[in-house]
């Protein structure tokens, strides 16, 4: 069959998804849960290998009502947010410097590239040894993992500021600060926010890695403990919480984009003359 003949079919599927998107999502979720339940029942898997969705839900509810899940979630969330803020703030400042000065770039880029070759899992134990098992070492790990994508996107965003708009600002006798505020920041924002979106999900991973290595609180710690006790249902409950956390942060950045980049996302008006 020619691809042209396929087209109406895909188009139809897309249209269907658009119109009934949330219903389809619900149906697919229910189907996945049902398949999971059937698998557990038919294969007669013990709960410590693969708990059924019902068992996971019950465990989730128990952990939620006794307050432990919320406590650990809050702890992890604090690390994630503090690390995300610190990492992206530093990356933005350094990124501005790198975009402005080729000397600085040549001076620092070997280290920056090399730092990317080191897996964060390998450095995490060191950081915990140096800075203790408290929250600080986790924030540091989150910041580290967030740092690079935000840095790169800041530099790329600033480098992509169109020359003709720079000329325009110069012809209007704009100061450097005015150029930063009225041209460079808004022009770099779309790419920068893309980096922040990646950073947000990476930060969650950073926190869990840190908590695995050494911690007495947080969702990573909870997973570690539950695993030791063969409480696999609790492991699942913690993982789902992490997924929700990462999705929520991702969604938050997307909301920020919709708000700050209205000029790209606003619906077009009725065709102007």
């Amino acid at each position, binding site marked *: 069959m020619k691809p042209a003949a396929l087209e109406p079919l895909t188009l139809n599927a897309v249209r269907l998804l658009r119109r009934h998107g949330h219903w389809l999502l619900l149906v697919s979720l229910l189907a996945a849960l049902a398949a999971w339940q059937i698998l557990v029942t038919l294969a007669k898997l013990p709960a410590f290998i693969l708990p059924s969705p019902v068992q996971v839900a019950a465990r989730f509810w128990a952990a939620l009502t006794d307050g432990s899940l919320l406590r650990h979630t809050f702890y992890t969330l604090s690390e994630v947010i503090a690390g995300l803020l610190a990492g992206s703030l530093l990356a933005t400042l350094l990124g501005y410097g790198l975009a402005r000065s080729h000397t600085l770039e040549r001076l620092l880029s070997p280290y920056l590239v090399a730092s990317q070759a080191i897996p964060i899992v390998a450095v995490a134990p060191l950081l915990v040894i140096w800075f203790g098992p408290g929250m600080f070492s986790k924030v540091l790990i989150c910041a580290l993992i967030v740092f690079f994508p935000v840095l790169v996107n800041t530099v790329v965003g600033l480098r992509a500021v169109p020359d003709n708009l720079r000329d325009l600002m110069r012809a209007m*006798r704009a100061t450097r600060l005015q150029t930063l505020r009225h041209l460079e920041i*808004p022009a770099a924002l779309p790419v920068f926010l893309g980096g922040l979106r990646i950073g947000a999900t990476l930060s969650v991973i950073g926190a869990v890695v840190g908590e695995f290595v050494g911690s007495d609180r947080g969702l990573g710690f909870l997973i570690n403990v539950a695993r030791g006790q063969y409480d696999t249902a609790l492991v699942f409950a913690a993982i789902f919480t992490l997924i929700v956390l990462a999705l929520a942060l991702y969604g938050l950045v997307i909301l920020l984009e919709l708000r700050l980049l209205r*000029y790209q996302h606003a619906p077009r008006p009725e065709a102007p003359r």
Partner: protein
Amino acid sequence: MKAALDLPVCCDEAPPAGSPRDCAVLKVNHLSLTFPGEREGLRAVEDLTFELREQEFVCVLGPSGSGKSTLVRVLAGLLRPTSGSVHFAPLRGEGRPPRVGVVFQQANLMPWRTVVENITLPLELQGVPLEAARQQAAEMVELIGLQGFEDTWPRDLSGGMAQRVALARALVQDPDLLLLDEPFGALDALTRERMGGELLRLWQARQKTVLMVTHSISEALLLSDRVLVLTARPGRLALDLTVNLPRPRDEEMRYTAPFGELARRLRAAIV
């Protein structure tokens, strides 16, 4: 980079406000600019000397690569001349630096600013309070006939509309000199003709000194008081032609004898 545009030379004193000035507002003296390059570099413009009088509309014609854009960029303070000088006459009133409004071939609007916000930008940079700036911008919107599009994003404007906004942005700061580098170059012929008329109306309403680069001989003759013709690289002054056609001018004038005579002289000068 410090702009090389601040020494008064022509009139020794600013005239009292309101009285017309019968002398140059801008004096260009033996201006040359060479872009650095292999061996001797690229001579873009060479030994340009001319004056712009107050409220004069001057067009610059010349073959491609004759340094027209380079001249505009020097006058706008974006390039520093290799030798020679550009002097603004002392301004009426306070000793502020001269303001230059520029419109390029592309509208160069900030995509994250609405029509009104694009027009207020130069005022914001000068520290005009936002309320006052919006008021002035609203007047400009009316002048360019874009009422109803105040809050439109640039991506939703047609080429002609965007260029009108760029014109409004250049005019709103009440510039001492308006520089136009093929402002209608990217537009279709019909829109271009309409925009020419529009520009004349704005020029008459705002009484500006205008220097405009164009490729079109008839556009130059319909709009300007004077036409400067540059030679092919390096750009030297080939002809400084006064256009003594009566105003208001219209498209019909193209077919008159004086127009044809001027057009013939211009065409002969453009090698």
